[in-house]
């Protein structure tokens, strides 16, 4: 798989006839179907659609988590990563395309804590768990900068921190929290703290001079988000996980 030096991602995809995407266990974005062993999930469906548009094969590449997804991109082991948040600082390290969806944030409290508005969380003695590397952390810093942030490596630990009383609440996307709730009915109800916030999700790319790959993805994202294809994919993915009742307030497009 010798990659000639300075070959652009676009040329690489054309030459090898495949597009590689980083995946890791993070339902409902990416997850492995336990029966077939195939990678499925909303982002996987998007990746497959991109491959179809390009008439190349789709190749999921398993990476360890968010940090490793970035590493894989920089090391040329994948060509794109889904579900990243594009901060200006991050944009000095990788390129972004998109956005591909918009998503709202909710909080889940442990039974002893009763936060309702972001102001309830914005206190130094309130411990809020988030998952490292995700926009959960960014969002919390924006909405409740004074809260004590507890960054956990994976989403199950976030849930555990709250259910064991080590944290008062966690905040995550409405999507992830629905999944957590179905798997962990013992968790408290989720709260939609006001003011309501939503953030866009992007595709991460290697920094490069050749703009063709980024341009292509930007057009693809625009097309799919405006036509509502990505929202459909999100809902379909939740459905496969047994989540049929999606609150009417939830939307995956800019509001």
């Amino acid at each position, binding site marked *: 798989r010798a990659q000639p030096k300075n070959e652009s991602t676009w040329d690489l995809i054309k030459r090898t006839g495949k597009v590689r995407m980083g995946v890791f266990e993070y339902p409902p974005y990416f997850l492995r179907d336990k029966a077939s062993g195939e990678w499925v999930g909303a982002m996987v469906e998007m990746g497959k659609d991109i491959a179809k548009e390009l008439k190349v094969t789709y190749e999921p590449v398993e990476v360890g988590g968010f*940090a490793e997804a*970035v590493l894989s991109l920089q090391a040329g082991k994948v060509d794109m990563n889904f579900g990243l948040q594009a901060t200006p600082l991050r944009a000095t*390290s990788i390129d972004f395309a998109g956005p591909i969806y918009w998503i709202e944030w909710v909080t889940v409290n442990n039974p002893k804590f009763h936060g309702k508005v972001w102001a309830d969380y914005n206190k130094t003695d309130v411990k809020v768990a988030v998952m490292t590397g995700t926009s959960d952390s960014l969002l919390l810093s924006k909405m409740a900068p004074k809260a004590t942030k*507890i*960054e956990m490596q994976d989403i199950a630990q976030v849930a555990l921190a709250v259910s064991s009383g080590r944290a008062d609440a966690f905040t995550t996307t409405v999507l992830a929290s629905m999944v957590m709730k179905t798997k962990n009915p013992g968790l408290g109800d989720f709260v939609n703290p006001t003011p309501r916030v939503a953030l866009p999700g992007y595709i991460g790319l290697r920094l490069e001079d050749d703009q063709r790959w980024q341009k292509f993805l930007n057009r693809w994202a625009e097309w799919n988000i405006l036509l509502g294809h990505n929202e459909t994919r999100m809902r379909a993915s939740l459905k496969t996980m047994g989540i049929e009742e999606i609150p009417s307030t939830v939307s995956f497009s800019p509001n």
Partner: protein
Amino acid sequence: MPYKWDFSLVFSYTHFWLKGLGVTLAYSVGTVLGGLIIGVILGMLLLYRRKWVTLPIHAYVEVFRCTPLLVQIVWFYYALPIVLAVELPAWLAAGLGLTLYMGSFSTEIFRGGIISIDKGQWQASRALGMTNLEMMRHIILPQAIKRMVPPFVNQSVIQLKNTSLLYVVAVPDLMYTGSIVVSDTFRPLEVYTSVAAMYFIILYPLTLWASRMEARVDQ
């Protein structure tokens, strides 16, 4: 386009790094000392060859030695409050796993150091009429400690690196700080390399000192 290394971003987090360094050092020193104390007490108790003393100690040593430290930390931090309704402060719960892990290795090191002292020293001390405690304190330990230093330092080096497992309970040590800086900057290679350099700067002098000690014991 080839990767452009940029360490300047890493350095802009100096304040974070210093805090992470502090946490790593504090937990390392604390849990190494705690483990040492456990090792001294249990290693000593192992000299009494009564089954009811040695069996539980061996069980403790083996359970902690043969299971992942990560799981031990998870247990002390999350499971203890759930199972026993014992609510330990976070810093203590996090440190307990590390301490007991270090303790299990220290026990073996301590016992090994003591039994490595020539039998003649024990015999001569007893013949002079020393009690076990007097013998330990004045004759055996002063000699054994020198021999325990190298394996103990080796284990401390491993322990200092093991503090990175505190990430599971979100204690902001050096490695955890690293992963936060990574998620901020998306510069994992620069960040991890810097973290490695910091570990090296702390640990290398320690191993150097240990091998000096070792050379001195050989004499």
